[in-house]
């Protein structure tokens, strides 16, 4: 069946896929679509973001509503105080670094506990041209915060988000892609998790014509804990791609990846890549990654590629799981045999599919908002 795509093994080991890093876009050739990291992406829909022709300046505004304990700064690109933990790993990321003249820096001072979420709103005003952004989230040692990055509107946008969680610190970050249908958004998030630090990174991708988001995590000390969660819902015409990379290079660190997606409509398309590397020095690593896709209509296509490379024999646990399929007939039969009509039964099962992830959103208003968005998607399906 063409709609069902199993796990496809990639040709190259994870360690080789993420080797190249540079701030100079010219160090990365213009992609042709044959490269491992570009083969799932429809390059002709990128509006030149990966090409080499200069693009006129696009219009995207960024606003920030910080918690009182949190500092906000607009720093020049060359500001020496900016962290240097993120080096672009592909051409679009390098172009976004070069194109963003300043960085918005969200800082959480040492030992501060933010009393409410800090919200960064990114609003696209026009798809013409291209806009570039740079956000830095710097959580100092023993500090704790929740940061929401909320994208909406129409844009052609590429950005980098650099996340640093200092030793013993804790950050829950939620990135919502709720763009209009005509938006193209290519984004890289790179997190450095300090000694005994915790990161919960949650991605919710609902809107946008083409969204390609690549979160990566590296550990700066032992005992780090990263939880990477994702929820996406693709309709016809949408290409939603999430490419994760967890780089275990420190001992006794933990990572959990759980991404769930639903697809409806003949041309709905999602891609999930889950690369996990456990380097020789990362003894005592505990990692598990999981991706599940629910194909609600014929023709929709979900690619799911977990890729785990283990270079030490001393791990606590390392596993992955990937499954893409339709709603189970037996689930629907059971519910309907109790009098529940088909549409309501489908809703129950789909809500159940996403429910656990939604309950992990650290902002109550977001739980309501995401639940409502999914209800809207389902209502569209039934119309």
């Amino acid at each position, binding site marked *: 069946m063409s709609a069902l795509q199993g796990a496809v093994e990639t040709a190259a080991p994870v360690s080789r896929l993420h080797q190249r890093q540079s701030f100079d876009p010219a160090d990365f050739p213009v992609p042709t679509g044959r490269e491992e990291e570009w083969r799932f992406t429809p390059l002709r829909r990128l509006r030149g973001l990966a090409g080499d022709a200069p693009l006129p300046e696009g219009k995207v505004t960024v606003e920030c509503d910080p918690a009182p304990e949190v500092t906000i700064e607009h720093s020049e690109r060359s500001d020496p105080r900016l962290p240097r933990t993120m080096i672009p790993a592909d051409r679009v990321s390098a172009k976004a670094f070069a194109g963003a003249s300043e960085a918005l820096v969200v800082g959480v001072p040492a030992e501060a506990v933010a009393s409410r979420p800090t919200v960064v709103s990114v609003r696209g005003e026009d798809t013409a041209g291209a806009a570039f952004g740079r956000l830095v989230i710097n959580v100092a040692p023993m500090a704790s915060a929740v940061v929401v990055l909320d994208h909406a509107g129409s844009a052609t946008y590429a950005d980098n988000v650099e996340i640093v969680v200092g030793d013993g610190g804790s950050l829950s970050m939620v990135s919502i892609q709720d763009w209009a249908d005509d938006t193209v958004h290519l984004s890289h998030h790179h997190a450095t998790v300090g000694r005994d630090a915790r990161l919960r990174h949650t991605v919710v991708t609902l809107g946008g014509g083409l969204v390609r988001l690549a979160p990566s995590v590296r550990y700066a000390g032992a005992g780090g804990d990263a939880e990477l969660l994702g929820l996406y819902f693709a309709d016809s015409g949408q290409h939603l791609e999430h490419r994760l990379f967890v780089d275990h290079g420190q001992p006794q660190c933990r990572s959990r990846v759980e991404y769930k997606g639903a697809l409806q409509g003949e041309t709905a398309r999602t891609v999930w890549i889950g690369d996990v590397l456990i380097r020789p020095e990362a003894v005592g690593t505990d990692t598990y990654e999981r991706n599940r896709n629910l194909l609600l209509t014929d023709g929709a296509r979900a690619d799911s590629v977990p890729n785990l490379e283990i270079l030490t024999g001393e791990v606590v646990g390392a596993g992955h799981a990937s499954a893409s399929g339709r709603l*189970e*007939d*037996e*689930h629907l*039969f*059971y*519910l*309907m*045999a*109790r*009098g*529940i*009509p*088909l549409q*309501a*039964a489908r809703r*129950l*099962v789909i*809500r*159940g*599919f*996403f*429910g*656990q992830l939604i309950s992990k959103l650290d902002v109550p208003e977001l739980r309501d908002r995401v639940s409502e968005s999914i209800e809207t998607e389902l209502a569209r399906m039934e119309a």
Partner: protein
Amino acid sequence: MATLQIRDLHVSVADATGGSREILRGVDLTVADGQTHAIMGPNGSGKSTLAYAIAGHPKYEVTRGSVTLDGEDVLGMSVDARARAGLFLAMQYPVEVPGVTVSNFLRTAVTAVRGEAPKLREFLKEMRGAMAALSVDPAFAERNLNEGFSGGEKKRHEILQLELLKPKIAVLDETDSGLDIDALKVVAGGINRFREEPGHGVLLITHYTRILRYVQPDFVHVFVGGRIVEEGGPELADTLESEGYERWVKAGAGAAS
């Protein structure tokens, strides 16, 4: 008043080669309210197929015959419409539905069957009462449907639904299998509460006579080779207990060849 009437029912399932195989070969049976019928038969005789065909599972194709509930054509109804019309199937292997809690599921089902949402407070009281009667831990309400339930927990949960949904006719498909004696008594207690209420009939499908000591049937039907081959009162169960199905299986095999 409730009557489930099955006439000359023939049912086939698709086989692996793309063809179809006839499982039920002309079943005639009438279950009225106030009655308890036991259907007993060996493995593979088609007992479960009868249960699923009545409930409308899409895997089973009715090729001939009729099923009516109080004169209404059941076979023309969707699965959910059959349940709302008053049919209930307690499943032999209830499926796990991840992320759907028991309380949410029960409330949705009760709302669908009764045609209006019960008041939350009253529903919770009713649900907790039904749970207590079946010795079900109240924490069950917040667990995911059948997920991680033991065999006995699943069966008690099926009977819990029976007591909340109050159908006209309940078809219980091997509800006794896999239960230890204490669980069996609890489950039988639920079935007896249900059938003592007016307007309720029971079709009890079982492989063993054990449950019939706790749920006394009015009629016993021996089911072999996709049809009823003998009918009698409760004493027929005693014959089966001492002699087994061998006599009918042999006769059936002779007739088929």
